């Protein structure tokens, strides 16, 4: 343990000051190079776009400010539906996905049939295109004519997304669980923790941390796939854009809708980066 005393009267040496100057010169140099490279890349891409023969027509049909403003209110309304669907589906998917992953790891004898079902579920569901699942649930379930089953399209479209994505998310959780080193299991067992306690307190917390980036990937994908419900007639952002576009012969609303989806996914991605970095720093401090 070092005492704090010498810290106060320490002054950087001449050599250190020179080194700091060199480092900040290197930093400036990197910034200049990075900025120049960025300007060149963006310039080339922009020029290629603007100078292309069809550019004036593209601008008129895809980037028309007037149509953007006109279509905005109905797209906002539609987008709210996408957001609601995402917010409802995501927690359910996480819970169901984790439950499926844990089932596949379960060792107790009476869970064995459920384990088989979990495997079957992921295999079958992952094989079906999400759009097809949406059709099957939205048109199929109400057609069964069962008493007391909801008939709302929104309900069944959300169920379809939950079913589809829980299969993907279960696999992500499973890979995380399997990546936890066996020595961790051994030391938990040595403390006489039960299998469930080991999972709950040792394995799953480590697994979840590791799978945050791929989970985020699935979140983003889900946010976009909420637009699949446009195909069964739900008035979401995409449907609103298509509705306006077809009526006014202008595609600008599609670009507006796309911007909404981007605006929702980018902050989430950055947030997850920050979380992952903070975790890594805390866990690896001083470790080598």
């Amino acid at each position: 343990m070092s005492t704090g005393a010498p810290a106060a009267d320490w002054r950087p040496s001449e050599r250190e000051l020179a080194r700091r100057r060199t480092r900040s010169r290197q930093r400036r140099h990197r910034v200049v190079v990075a900025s120049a490279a960025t300007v060149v890349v963006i310039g080339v891409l922009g020029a290629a776009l603007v100078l292309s023969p069809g550019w004036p027509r593209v601008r008129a049909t895809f980037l028309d400010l007037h149509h953007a403003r006109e279509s905005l209110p109905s797209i906002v309304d539609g987008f709210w539906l996408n957001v609601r669907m995402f917010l409802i589906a995501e927690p359910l998917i996480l819970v169901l996905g984790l439950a499926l992953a844990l089932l596949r790891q379960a060792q107790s004898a009476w869970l064995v049939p459920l384990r088989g079902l979990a495997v079957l579920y992921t295999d079958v569901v992952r094989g079906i295109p999400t759009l097809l699942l949406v059709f099957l649930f939205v048109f199929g379930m109400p057609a069964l004519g069962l008493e007391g089953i909801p008939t709302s399209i929104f309900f069944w479209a959300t169920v379809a997304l939950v079913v589809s994505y829980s299969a993907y998310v279960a696999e992500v959780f499973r890979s995380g669980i399997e990546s936890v080193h066996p020595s961790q299991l051994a030391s938990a067992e040595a403390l006489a923790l039960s299998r469930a306690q080991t999972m709950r307190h040792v394995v799953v917390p480590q697994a979840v941390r590791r799978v945050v980036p791929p989970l985020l990937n699935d979140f983003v994908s889900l946010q976009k796939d909420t637009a699949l419900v446009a195909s069964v007639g739900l008035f979401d952002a995409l449907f609103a854009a298509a509705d306006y576009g077809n009526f006014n012969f202008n595609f600008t609303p599609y670009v507006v809708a796309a911007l909404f989806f981007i605006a929702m996914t980018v902050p989430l991605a950055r947030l997850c980066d920050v979380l992952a970095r903070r975790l890594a720093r805390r866990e690896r401090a001083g470790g080598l």
Partner: protein
Amino acid sequence: MAPLLEVRNLRKTYARHDEPGRRVVLDDLSLSVSSGDVVCLIGSSGSGKSTLLRCLDLLEPIDDGVIEFRGREISDPAVDPRVVRRDIGMVFQAYNLFPHLSVLDNCTLAPRKVHGLSPAAAREKARDLLARFGLDEHVDKHPDRLSGGQQQRVALVRALCTDPALLLLDEITAALDPELVGEVLDIVRSLADAGTTMVLATHEMGFAREVASHVCFLDGGRIVEEGTPAQVLGTPEQARTREFLRRVLPQA
């Protein structure tokens, strides 16, 4: 002759995570290592031995001071750390072998990818060294299948395969069973006999006394006492050194 490694007024601090300000881990530390020297760093846990070794390998940025290797300042920001590390080998307490590669591939990775050896030449050299240290039957195994002592011997061979001019060893026996310590120290001893220049942090006082040409006692990030093993371990002048030795040596 100019020393192989020269450290002058080295200072290293870490940010405190609980409070503002920085914690000084190495404080105005100077050290000189000539070719063929075996320098042992001793001192209680947290005295800064590992940090010093990591700074020497440029794995940590330093706050002040100068590190010279082969007469050239390597703490200069314009120096590419990878060029320096080509000539320095480092072995860690926890072996840090690559679990997805076989023993042989662990040992040939750097010679092939960094030093430009042909795969055949790298393999031959690694096999030679592995055989010399009694590891010939494990060449094709993966590290997790080996005992701790074997893994640490592989880690030593991996560091040696690039013919380093300087070897940095950080408590390489601290994670081993007592009965396995010997087989690893035997290697270090034979390297010392062969004139390999080494800086090693160790808790094995008997070993330090036997192989060191020079012993440094670190306390609170400073070298409190240094000299020949007989001086520092036998007739220490500083009270803190005596206290430390009383704690780690069974009798005296």
